């Protein structure tokens, strides 16, 4: 079973991302949206933590949130639009949004 974890809180003010990273399964994936895309901020410890995640953890971000904040994504991250978000929710066995 592989889970798509969805995060929308800024990792600088909130512990959801760090909690999530601790309990990720080996086939799980992360989708960053809303303020969670700030985890991609260059030079941040959060960005480093994401880049250090094992290769088998897929990393996604909602494109409108990345663009709205003027962020640059690491090469391992795939930006998705809403149809892409829907496709991911079908591809993974379940979706766990950190509300």
């Amino acid at each position, binding site marked *: 079973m592989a889970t798509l974890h969805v995060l929308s809180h800024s990792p600088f003010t909130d512990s959801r991302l760090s909690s999530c990273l601790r309990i990720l399964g080996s086939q799980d994936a992360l989708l960053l949206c809303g303020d969670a895309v700030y985890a991609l901020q260059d030079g941040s410890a959060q960005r480093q933590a994401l880049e250090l995640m094992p290769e088998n953890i897929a990393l996604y971000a909602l494109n409108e949130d990345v663009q709205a904040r003027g962020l640059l994504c690491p090469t391992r991250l795939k930006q998705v639009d809403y149809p892409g978000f829907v496709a991911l929710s079908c591809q993974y066995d*379940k979706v766990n949004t950190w*509300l």
Partner: protein
Amino acid sequence: MKFAIALFSPPHAPSSRRALRFAQAALAGGHEIVRLFFYQDGVHSTSSNVVCAQDEVDLPREWREFVQTQQLDGVVCIAAALRRGVLNDDEAQRYSRTAANLDAPWELSGLGQLHEAAQLADRLVCFGGP
């Protein structure tokens, strides 16, 4: 795929718009939405009393039109709604409140409807927070 979509945030939260865009994309992609369930602050996304500036997205109206046009099942948790002052005519009368702010197409019901939707759907997708 069959989706159950649950919203936990109010209309001014970006996640409310995100949930709507996801739901629209799901239908556009040929999927089915078994139910939309509004819980916690998500009940505010169904209020008829939210006033949006002319140059802003009117999410409660968009949600309402989406459910009506697509003939979807839009359920609002009654306990969460009462606690937050979102009442339909019946509840406003029952509790002697001066105003009702929940209209069609929204239905007030219990958490059983969330569980039923989760059982019927292939995927339960929740939206909340920022």
